[in-house]
């Protein structure tokens, strides 16, 4: 089976998310993006429209910390599809919306702080309505980011990387990745030349250190 075939297989598992305000369950699906069609473009456009609406309704609305303002997912996905390196574009889709996006890069040689093959989570983001809910809009969903991260672990395992993940964290997201279970391993320069805290998830070394205790 091809790598893409493996990912397609992983990325069609139905998942269950929770509404933030009612805990009601919402069905969603992880999808592997193989091409960028108009539907995908429109749905990605809803993210920035949402933020613009928030600011338009209330110019003082605290929308700081929304990557949507600076991240262009359509571009990220195009880059992932065209890249000479092995990259994957993944989305979490509910009935009518894209609830989260992620791009992955295979690191077969490892990196300075993680010297074994792993999957790098290049970019990951939950939809703005899930992070900055608007009272008059559809309810926000909880756990989209965790679902995407778990998907990355499954993909890493599927590709023979034993579920190992690494990422360069936004300083503000470090607490999240620590509580997710990742270990901070210094800092690394990313491909854009910026330095970020590096986080690793490695079940194999964790179980070895446990058995060595």
């Amino acid at each position: 089976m091809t790598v893409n075939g493996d990912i397609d297989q992983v990325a069609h598992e139905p998942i269950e998310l929770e509404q933030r305000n009612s805990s009601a369950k919402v069905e969603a699906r992880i999808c592997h993006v193989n091409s960028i069609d108009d539907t995908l473009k429109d749905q990605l456009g809803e993210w920035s429209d949402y933020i613009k609406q928030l600011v338009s309704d209330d110019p003082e609305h605290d929308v700081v910390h929304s990557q949507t303002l600076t991240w262009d997912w359509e571009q990220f996905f195009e880059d992932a599809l065209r890249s000479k390196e092995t990259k994957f574009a993944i989305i979490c889709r509910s009935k009518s919306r894209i609830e989260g996006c992620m791009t992955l890069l295979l690191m077969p040689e490892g990196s300075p702080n993680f010297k074994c093959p792993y999957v790098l989570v290049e970019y990951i983001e939950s939809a703005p309505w899930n992070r900055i809910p608007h009272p008059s809009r559809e309810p926000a969903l909880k756990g989209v980011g965790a679902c995407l991260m778990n998907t990355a672990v499954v993909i890493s395992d599927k590709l023979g990387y034993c579920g190992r993940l690494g990422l360069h964290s936004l300083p503000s997201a470090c607490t999240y990745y620590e509580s997710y279970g990742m270990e901070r391993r210094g800092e690394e320069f990313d491909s854009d030349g910026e330095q970020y805290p590096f986080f690793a998830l490695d079940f194999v070394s964790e179980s070895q250190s446990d058995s060595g205790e």
Partner: protein
Amino acid sequence: MTNLTMKMVEQKLAALRQRKGLKFDGDLDFVGTKSVTMKEGVANLRISISKSGVGAATSVARIKRPKA
């Protein structure tokens, strides 16, 4: 390869968190950060909005791309 499923990943992570004494509420929640990067982002958005209305900003701050 161990043929991990999403459920198995959740279980492995739960065990890992328990060992480390971590509490995870499942939210990818970035609220509360006031980083320069994000302020630049907001500034840029507001500039974009004002461009479609009255007046326009003369310059747009360079937007850094934060990572995961």
